[in-house]
């Protein structure tokens, strides 16, 4: 077996996909149950769910793990089905921009000083 890190090996990426899979399998159903149990019907109730700092940190970490997981998955799909190298690189770049943009956007929402204060 190859080392699980370093360049020119898929093992590290494979491991990253599995590790983030486990994290997401715990975090996403947990968050889903938290939101479904709270069932906020107005803005104040909805906003208060994100008031605790730990909740906002958990959201950001979860979506960061999701972005890494989705990057590996989309990369696998493109490697299997998209033959032309140029097109494959363009698609992979679009995926990376979309995911990195989503994480940055979520960070801006979760840590917006105007909404949550500086805590």
């Amino acid at each position, binding site marked *: 077996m190859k080392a699980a890190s370093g360049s020119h090996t898929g093992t590290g990426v494979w491991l990253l996909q599995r590790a983030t899979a486990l994290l997401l399998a715990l975090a*996403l159903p947990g968050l889903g149950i938290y939101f479904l149990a709270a069932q906020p019907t107005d803005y104040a109730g909805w906003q208060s769910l994100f008031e605790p700092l730990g909740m906002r940190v958990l959201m950001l970490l979860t979506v960061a793990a999701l972005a890494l997981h989705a990057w590996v998955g989309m990369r696998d799909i493109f490697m299997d089905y998209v033959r032309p190298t140029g097109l494959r690189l363009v698609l992979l770049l679009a995926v990376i921009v979309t995911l990195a943009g989503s994480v940055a956007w979520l960070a801006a*929402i979760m840590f917006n000083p105007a909404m949550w204060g500086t805590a």
Partner: protein
Amino acid sequence: MPERPVYLNLLRIHLPVSGWVSILHRLSGGLLFLAVPFGVWGLSQSLSDEAGFDRVANWLGHPLAKLFMLILVWAFAHHLFAGLRHLALDAHWGLDPKHARRSSITVLLASGLVVLLFARKLFI
């Protein structure tokens, strides 16, 4: 073109049930990827102010939005259950054809059940 047997008629390719679980795992993963930016956008709108919250609540009440949500619920449930199955297979658990087939059917039934529960919550 060289003369060789090429069987790419998708309607004539017979996939075993574990093959369906596998290809649906990819399909659901791709769908969930596409949903990520829309999810962050919805979160941004709904947390911006009261008008934004009402706007998103209004959109999500639309039957078409509910249908999209139901599709995403299926995609998430299937991706989760099939993913846990793949992790088990990685650990060489349930590799023999009998158990692999049984766990595939379980994945399909479990995600179907989750969809039914959410459909009842969304539409009734």
